[in-house]
């Protein structure tokens, strides 16, 4: 007799009808369905969503300050890096598993201007903050070794996240530095069956 858990959610902007008028409001995903037997879990979830929203608001304020330092933010690797550092709050506060929802809330609902400006669709809006989040995990020394475009592709390599010793990252950064690979070439490399596949990554030539 195990109960299904309440689905993790977040605040999101949606339109509801109040007295016949459509109004855009920020609603919580958590809903208390009477008779579901999960009323208290739903309230737990509601309070967690509030906690996340508060953390998001704090992070956005910090990001606003960073944004003031970078009038030209487009494709600026250092802006992304600094914002990425702020976005680490998802890990420190234990919201890592909801980060997709958090990115959506920040970059779609609240401040698309801080995350690559154009308001895209909900799914697409998550990608930029996700990139920033991973970039924020890198050392400053490494960030310097590749351009914005290169990083956009580098961080898409799955192997980076499986390689605890960062040997893989080191290799690809070395190649980027030496050969100045374009974004397209890195992409091809990633998709190529000859890409790094162990044995000291010697198959790449």
């Amino acid at each position: 007799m195990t109960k299904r858990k309440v689905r993790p959610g977040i605040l999101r902007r949606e339109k509801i009808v109040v007295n016949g008028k459509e109004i855009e409001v920020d609603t919580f995903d958590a809903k208390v369905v009477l008779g579901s037997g999960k009323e208290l879990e739903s309230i737990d979830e509601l309070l967690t969503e509030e906690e996340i929203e508060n953390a998001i608001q704090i992070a956005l304020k910090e990001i606003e300050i960073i944004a003031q330092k970078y009038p030209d933010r487009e494709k600026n690797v250092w802006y992304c890096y600094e914002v990425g550092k702020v976005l680490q709050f998802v890990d420190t506060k234990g919201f890592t598993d909801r980060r997709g929802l958090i990115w959506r809330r920040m970059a779609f609902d609240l401040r698309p201007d801080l995350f690559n400006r154009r308001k895209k669709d909900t799914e697409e809006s998550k990608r930029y903050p996700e990139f920033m989040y991973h970039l924020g995990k890198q050392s400053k020394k490494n960030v310097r070794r590749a351009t914005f475009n290169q990083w956009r592709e580098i961080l898409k390599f799955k192997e980076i996240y499986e390689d605890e010793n960062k040997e893989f990252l080191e290799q690809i950064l070395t190649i980027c530095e030496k050969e100045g690979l374009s974004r397209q070439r890195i992409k091809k490399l990633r998709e190529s069956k000859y890409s790094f596949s162990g044995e000291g990554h010697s198959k790449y030539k």
Partner: protein
Amino acid sequence: MKRRDVNLGRTDENIAEQYLNLCEGLQKDAGQNSWDARATKKGKNWKLEFRYIPNLNSLTIEDFGTRGMNAKRWKEYQSLWDTTKAEEVTLGARGQGKFLFHYFATNKLVLTESIDEEGNYRFSFGTSEEYDDETKKLTDLIPSEKPLGHQGTRIWIMDLKQELKDELLDYKAFMNYIAATWWEIVRNWDATFIVNFNGTDHKVMFPELPVAEQEKVFANEKVSDLGRVKKVVLRYCKNEVPELFRGIAVQRGGMTIVRLPVSAEETIKNKIYGYCTFDEDLELELKRVEFPNHFGFMNKKAWNHAKEYIRRKSDAFVQEISPIKKKEITLPQDLIERAVRIVNDLVRQYAPELAGEVIRSGGHGKTEGDGKKREVPKIRIDTFWGSARKLEYDESLITNCELVNDTDNAAKLQLEMEIRHEEDTRKFNAKYAIDLDGNKKERIDIPLVDFQENIDKPGEYKATAILTNGAGIEPHKRSFTFYLHEEPPPPRGRVFLNTMRFLYGKGKPFERRRQLPLTDKGVLYIVFDHADFTHVRELAGSKKAQKHEVFLYAIKCGIDEAIQKLLEFRYNEGQLDTDEISVIKDTCDAMYYDAVLTPTA
């Protein structure tokens, strides 16, 4: 089998979450541990002192006239949940309460000294995670203090947390908590509690309560097959009773576990206090179902029977003392009944850990042939519902049944009630002959029905009540369904209120409203950042309390919405006058009462 990893570092926090009021909990746990350890049965020379030491910012809890801790008790004290006390007649059961002490200390540091009957001195220091009773002496940690010099125990809660200190050191409030919890042993055994938070010893006295105008005592009555009630004393006073003492104190071993509110109008309710004590058998049964924090009981057979017994006695007492008979409230239309059921369902059926008990509600309670509009009979079963939609073994079904006679003439009625399992085996059957005066409503005391493993089959049960008056008038029938040891199916059909959702209202046209009008689909949007709601959340001390408050607030919003709809309904019917408004207000209060007061009982 592998041993599970346990994060003992958070034990004190987890335990603290169980308390709605930490300071009240602290005195209760300290008192309970110490009274359990008293050297003589009647607590001769027993004394418990709470002392604040400003230069150390520490609190000591020191007892006298106790056995102190020998090697066995010392080992038990240092462990968590390693106790056999649940089967003994002592007050403690799980050995967890002392971990609350660690919660009060900034670095969770608690020192303990004890001298047993043979004069052996023991000392330990430690956190909720670990302790050491070998390497250090008290004077190594506090050079200015002398070690304990008498048989008994002294506990040092070191460096009190700033956020808890102010509340804790309010000595008058602290003494009131002690008086409200331990009045029985203070009165009967002259137990001494000393509170010294400001350099002066204050002795906790037996509380001075207003003079009783009327008193009722019941003694030595059997409760099911569980044991006996030793004494129930109910008092109605001329003046209002202080808030902490209102209601019926349920006593176990000299300690007040919970106070059951009396079901009466505010003016009467505030003037009633009383208590209930049990024999050893029933005390033991109750101890088994007591919450580990000693602030209530689980929804189990022993508690359900005891509580039902107290309720009946207090209802009868209220009936006796009420200066004017309660105004008959005409059967509110279906809307209210549904809303009340929702409130009760939420509090008792789906959140028994909040309520600690199951009182009523559950079931659909539909009249036969629901769905069609039909006239409400003048003589009818007004209320018929069960305590829960789902029951487990060792739990009891409490049936709430009220009859109404809306005619001007008295009626001789027969009520038959039965409960059947889905396979048609009969679980319960009872018949009642009732004389019901005209324009009157009467509650029928249906006995509690217990369910036991290996005797009762799991599955769906249906309770049916049929009311006849033998005069050839069509019988009135009502029923409800509940499930034993089986998950009930999701509720069917349209309900008044289905879902509660939350949204931010700041800057919106409705920002000053608590909730938006109920949608066609039965969704109620509650404004999350309404000042009142924010305030409610801020006031809650722990996350558990916050959850509790959010839950109640949401229920109140549901009730407000139901009342709003009812007012509209009455207005459209042309029935809204000042009397009707007053009746609706009473109904609203009754719903609030159910929603707010019951869980604290």
